[in-house]
C-alpha cells in the first residue's frame, strides 16, 4: 500500500503544485479541470521522477505558507527601500558590501529557498555558495553594518526554514 502510494506520488507536494498550476492555466476551477489536473499531476511526476531520485524529507506546509507571507511583506517593504536608495543615494555615497552567512541548514531545498528569499528581498543578492555548502555569500547594495544583515538573515529566515524542512 505504502509502496504503491510512494510510486504513485513520488513527490506529493509536486502533484499538488501541478494540479494548482493546471487549474490556473485553464483559468477555471471546475471539477473536470481539477480532476484532469490531478491526473496530470500524477502522471508527470511519475514520468520525471528519475530526475528527482532523492525524495525530500519532511516538509511543513503550514509554516511554509506563513513564511511565504512574511517574505511577501518583506519584499514589498524592502522594494520601496531599494527604490529609494536607487533614486536618492548618489553612487559616491553608496556602500555595497559582501556578507558571508554561515549556514546551519543542510538540506538543498532549504538552502535554495533561503538563497531565493535573500535575493528576492531587495538590497541583498545571494551570490555564491562555499565549495562545501556551509556558507552563503551575500552581496548587499547599501549597508553600514554587514553583521546586522547577517543576523537578520539568520534569525528572520534561516531559523524559520529550519523548522519547515526538518
Amino acid at each position, binding site marked *: 500500500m505504502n509502496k504503491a502510494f510512494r510510486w504513485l506520488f513520488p513527490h506529493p507536494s*509536486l502533484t499538488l*503544485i*501541478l494540479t494548482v*498550476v*493546471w487549474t490556473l*492555466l*485553464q483559468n477555471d476551477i*471546475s*471539477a*473536470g479541470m481539477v*480532476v*484532469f489536473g490531478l491526473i*496530470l499531476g500524477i502522471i*508527470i*511526476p511519475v*514520468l*520525471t521522477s*528519475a*530526475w*528527482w*531520485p532523492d525524495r525530500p524529507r519532511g516538509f511543513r506546509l503550514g509554516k511554509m505558507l506563513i513564511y511565504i507571507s512574511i517574505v511577501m511583506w518583506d519584499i514589498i517593504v524592502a522594494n520601496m527601500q531599494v527604490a529609494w536608495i536607487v533614486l536618492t543615494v548618489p553612487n559616491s555615497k553608496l556602500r555595497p558590501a559582501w556578507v558571508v552567512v554561515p*549556514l546551519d541548514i*543542510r*538540506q*538543498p*531545498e532549504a*538552502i*535554495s529557498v533561503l*538563497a*531565493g528569499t535573500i535575493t528576492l528581498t531587495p538590497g541583498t543578492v545571494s551570490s555564491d*555558495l562555499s*565549495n*562545501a*555548502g*556551509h556558507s552563503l555569500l551575500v552581496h548587499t547594495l547599501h549597508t553600514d553594518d554587514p553583521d546586522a544583515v547577517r543576523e537578520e538573515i539568520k534569525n528572520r529566515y534561516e531559523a524559520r526554514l529550519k523548522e519547515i524542512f526538518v
Partner: protein
Amino acid sequence: IIAYARSYLSRDDNMGEFFKYLLLFQGAMVGIVMSDNILLLLIFWELTSLSSFLLIGYWKHLPEGRQGARMALTVTGMGGLAMVGGMLILGQIAGSYDLSVILQNRDLIQESPLYVPALILILLGCFTKSAQFPFHFWLPHAMAAPTPVSAYLHSATMVKAGIFLMARLWPVLSGTTEWFVIVTTAGLITMVLGSVIALFKHDLKALLAFSTVSHLGLITMLLGTGTAFGAMAAVFHILNHATFKAALFMSAGIIDHEAHTRDIRRLGGLRSLMPITFGIATLAALSMAGIPLLNGFLSKEMMLEEANHTVLFNTPWLVPALAVIGSLFSAAYCFRLISHVFLGPVRDDYPAKPHDPPAGLWLPPALLVVLVVLIGVAPFLAEPFVKLVTGSLLGTAADVPKNYFKIWHGLVPALYMSVAAVVGGALLLMAYKPALRLWDAAPRPEAKVLFEGLVEALVRLAKSIIHPLHNGAFSRYGAVMAVTVIAAGYHAWVTGTVGDATRQLQMASPVAIAGWLMLIAATVGMVFLHRNRLLSLILIGIVGLMVSIGFVFVSAPDLAMTQITVEVVTIILMLLALNFLPNQTPVESTVLRRMRDVGIAAAGGLAAFVMAYHYMLRDAVTAPISEFHLANSYKGGGGTNVVNVILVDFRGFDTYGEIIVLGIAALLIYALTETLLSSNVRAKLLNRKPDQPRAGNEHPMMMVVLTRVMMPVVMMVGFYIFLRGHNEPGGGFIAGLIVSIGVVMQYMASGFNWASARLRYPYHGVIGAGVLIAGLTGIGSWFVSKPFLTSDFTYVRIPPFQEFELATAAAFDLGVFLAVVGAVMLSLESFSRLARRDNVEENKHAFDIDPSRDDPPNGVSPKTEGAS
C-alpha cells in the same frame, strides 16, 4: 583491308578493340555515303571523326599516337561542328533536311542571304576532313596509327568524305564565284604544297600521306571549277587514286613490317630482296606519277586539260602553271620513292633482314595494282562506272560530258604539260640533294608543335578564366548573387509602372516606436559588435525578442510564441557551437572591401524596404484566399485558431514537409556527429583544453532544486499549449519546443551525462514515430476514400470533464509535436556529445555541493584540495 590487318597486327595488341573501332568507322563511312537525310549524314560524319580518333589513338602508349588522335579529333571535330551549322542553315533555307529536296532547290539556296555563311561553314567542314589547305597539317600526324588504319583512313576513305560531300552538294553549291574562288584556290594550293612537302619527307608513310593531301587538293580543285568535265575528272581521279594509293600504303606497311623501318634514308636496294613488293610499289608509284598506260595518267591528263580552261583572278596562266608545278613535284616524289627505296645497292644495316612477306600480305595490294594497270590500258572499262557516278553527282545541274576515255587524245596542251611535269620531276630528283639542303634551310612552321601550343594556350587561358573565378571565395559569390538580385529587381522596377497607394498609413504608437528603436539599435549593434561573438549572440537574442513582441503587437500570438521558443533553442545551439569556435572574429578584410560590402548591404536593405513599403500600402489585386480560411476554419476545420487550422488542415501538407525538414536536420546533425566522432577529430575533441579556466561548481544546487519543480511544470504547460492549440494560440510545434526546452533545462542543471543516464529517450524513435504518425494520420483518410490529410472532428463528453473536441488534426499535431521534440533533442544531444571530454568523470549526483549528503561537520569536502 581487314584481311590485311589481321596478319599485320602483332599478337600483343588488343585485336578486339581495334576491330571494334575499325568496323564502327566503316559503318560510319557507309552511312555518310548512303544517308539521304542530312541530319543522319551529320551523325555519320561526326562519327567518322570520333572513330578515327579512337583508331588513331589505338596505340595509346605512343605520345604521337595520343597527340595525333587529339589533333585529328579537334580539327575534324571543329570542321564537323561547322558542317552541322552549315547543313542546318541549308536545311532551314530549303525547309527540309531531306538531301533530295535540298538538291532540288539550287536557285532558292544560292539566292538566299544565308548561302555564303552556309557555304563557308560546309567548306570548312569538308576542308578540315579532307585535309585541304590550311587544314592539311593534321593528316600526317595521324601517322602513329598502325599501317592498315592509316592506309584505309587516309588513302581511301575518311579524307575522301570531305571530297564526297563537296561532290554530293556540288549541284546546289557549285557554280557561284564564291564556290569557284574558295574551292579552286584551296585545291590548288593544297595540291602544290602537299607534293612539295611530300618530296622532302623521309618517312615513307609521311611521304604517302602528303601525296594524298596533294591529290585531294587536285580533286578539290577539279570540283571547284564547277564544270561538268571537271566533276567527271574528279570522280575518275578519286577512283584511280584509291587504287594506287591503297596499294602503296600497303607496300609501305610491308616494308615497315619487314625492314622495321620506314625511313627512306635507311632503305634502298630492296629490289632484289623483296621483288614482289618492288613490282607492286613501282607500278603504283608510276601510276601516281602519271606515266601513260597506268590509270593515274588518264585522270591527270583530264585534270591538266581542265586546268587549261580555268581562269582564276583573271590571270589565264596561273592555274595551268600551278597544276604543272604540282604534278612535277608529284612525279618527283614518285620517282624518289622508287629509286631511294628499291633501287641502288643492297645495304647491310637494315634493322631487320627484309624479304617478301607471305601471300596474305602482298596479295591484296597486288590485286589493286592489277586494277591500276587494267584501267590504265583499257580506260573504257571504267568509263561507264565513272559516267554513272558523275551523272548521279551532277544530278539536274548539268549533263554528263560526252568525252570518251582514251589514252591518246592527240597533241593537246595537256600532253605537253604532263610531259613537262614528268621530265621536270625526273630532273628535280637528280638535283635532290641540293634541293633537300635548300628545303631544310628554309624555315617552315611545324604544325604539330603549333597545334599543341595552341591547345595548351587555350587550356591556360581557360584556367586563368575559371580558377580565379571559382576559387571558393564565398564572400564574393554572395556579393555577386546579391548584386545580381538587386540589379534584376531594379530593372523590373524601372520597367514597370507604380500604382497609387490604396491603403491608409496607420499611426505608430510610442511603444511601437520604442520597440523599433530597440530593434534598430540591436541590429546596428550586431554589425558593429559582431567581432565579439558572445555579445553578438546576446544582441540577436534582443532582435528575436523584439520581433516576437512585434508579432504580438500586430496580432500574431502564435508567431510570437514560435519565434521566442525557436529563439531560445537556437541560442542554446549557437552557444553549444561557440564553445568550440573562437570567441572573437579577427579583423581581416580591408576598409575598401568593407566599404564595398556596406554599399551592397545598403542597396539590398533599401530594396527590401521599398518592396515592403510598396506592398503594405496596396491591397491585393483581388480578395486573398485567406477569407475562405477565416470563413471555414470552424465549420470545416473544427478550430477557432485559424492559423493553427491552416497549419494542420488547410495547408497541413506544408506542415508535413516542415516537420520532415526538422527530422532530416536532426538526422543530419546526428550523422555528422557520428562521422566526426569516428574520425581523427575525436582525439582532438577528447583532450581539448577549454580556452579559459572554468568556474567551479558545474551543477549548482539552486538551479537543480528549482528545475525539479520547474521542469514538470514546463511539461504541463507544454501539454496545455498542445491541447488548446487548435482553438487558442499554441499547437504541437510550440508545445514540442517548450517540452524540449524543459528537458534541456534539466540537462543544463544536472549535466548531460547525469540526466540522460537517468532517463534516455530514443530520440530517433521519437522523430520516426512523429513523422510516421503525421503520415499515417494523413493516410487514414484514404480509408474513408478522402484525400491525404483530410481532417474530421467530433465533440465528446466524458463526465466529469466538460465536452471536448476530438479531431484527426490533433493526431497530426501530435506527430508534429513528437517530431519537434525528437528533432530538437537529438540535435542538442549530438552537439553536447561533441563536448564530452575523457578527463571528466560522470557526476554521481544531480548537483555537486550538498552538505546534507557529504557532511563531515565543518569538515573539508573531497573537492577542496588544489582549489585557488
